[in-house]
């Protein structure tokens, strides 16, 4: 099924570039710049009206944001969409304008992983307190030591 969607995507958005990842859960990899267009296309033309999960993964060479999409009407299996972000300045377009349900999830990914979602209406920490330093789910986050509460970060 993901294959089909992939072919349709390639057809519909010729400028964008995709990659089909044949794995346990087949996924479609998208370039960061194309994500918003692809998301809009998937929602409006392919009926993927439901965004289940937004996940950030810290790979050694890149950050990856993974989206799991469903179609409520068709009741399909999930479509996995992957987007890579650079290690130095991770930025990904926000899909909150398309799926409002992404709001808290993107904030969470930003909070724990440090990936900025451009275009998010209110991108701030959600689980940790304002002024917390660092993003704990990154692999390079120190596993030992304490951080005093109340250290204000000049924002």
């Amino acid at each position, binding site marked *: 099924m993901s294959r089909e969607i992939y072919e349709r995507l390639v057809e519909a958005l010729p400028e964008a570039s995709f990659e089909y990842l044949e794995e346990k859960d087949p996924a479609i990899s998208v370039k960061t710049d194309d994500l918003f267009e692809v998301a809009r296309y998937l929602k409006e033309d392919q009926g993927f009206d439901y965004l289940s*999960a937004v996940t950030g993964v810290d790979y050694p060479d890149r950050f990856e944001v993974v989206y799991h999409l469903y179609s409520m009407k068709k009741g399909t299996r999930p479509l996995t969409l992957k987007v890579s972000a650079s290690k130095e300045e991770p930025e990904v377009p926000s899909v909150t304008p398309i799926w409002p349900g992404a709001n808290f999830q993107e904030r969470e990914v930003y909070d724990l992983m440090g990936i900025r979602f451009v275009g998010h209406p209110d991108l701030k920490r*959600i*689980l940790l307190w304002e002024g917390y330093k660092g993003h704990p789910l990154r692999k390079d986050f120190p596993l030992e030591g304490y951080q005093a509460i109340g250290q204000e970060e000049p924002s």
Partner: protein
Amino acid sequence: MQRVETGLRTETITVNMGPQHPSTHGVFRMIVTLDGETIVDLEPVMGYLHRCQEKIGERNTYLQNIPYTDRLDYICSMSNNMAYVMAVEKLAQIEVPERAEYIRIIMVELTRIVNHAVAIGALLNDLGCFFTPMLYALEERERILDLFEMASGSRMMCNYMRFGGVRYDLPPGFMPELKSVVAALPAFIDEFERLLTENEIVLARCQNVGVLPPDMAIAYSCTGPLLRASGVNYDIRKVDSYSIYDRFDFDVVTETNCDVYDRYLVRIGEMRQSVRILEQALEQIPEGEVSVKLPRVFKPPEGDVYHRIESPKGELGFYLVSDGGTNPYRYKIRSPTFINLTVLPELCKGHKVADVVAILGSIDIVLGEVDR
């Protein structure tokens, strides 16, 4: 005190509901802007119970994560177990013996009954009942927790499921006990309904409160009873049938008025459907093995996998990335109540303070799962 300076006509006050508040079901905070008693704005603030579950998950081995999943939604540890275990099984492609599948389904459906009963009890507590429905719910829960304890050794933190099966087979004496509990469940649900369903005060407090239209529910990624009460016929057990749910005959409960009362009705209906599933499972359960032998050092192959189940509170998914080692490379929990909370401010605007607690109660959050 922050005032809306635009109109100068009305004076709004900002009230912190929580983090220590009787009706936030834990340490959850809502910054509520009030005009009189009417909500103008609401901002949920969470993270007071954040325990870095996902980071800990990367440190633990795959097996060691199972007791941690118990502590996500501490009311439904069995279904959390099941979601995680199934994700790992998908990753490592492990086949599960048939009896184990049945045991899992019995446990998960019992969990669903526990969760819904407690959710309704807590909702009624928030509505101002002096604990009576809650305690009736807890009575039934005690009986079910006894069964859990009998099978797994612990009442709430069951840690019962393993990759490729369950920890132990059901103990002797479990089945008769389970049968008598299941046989008594419909009477309990009936009594619950007699107490609440037609009660005018419950109706007045719940009907047309927190209306969540279906398209909005979908847009905000709501799941579980919240979604089905909005009239969306979507149950992962049916749509994306996992385990052996396709063998059972049950209905997806939906309601059409999309309000707090319908969420209550959906929960009652799901309890009845769970009883149906349990009755069928009790008849069909075969004898046989309950687990497969795995190597002592368990290393699933490289890859990433997402698996979701219909937990009592909604879609519970685990996204696992494996680098072939003993620990997950990334361990992500898609917790239903965290994402259901996204819609809370939209639901509450324009209602009274008293409705906020009703709406929050009808979303049925557990902070262990929201904050992880």
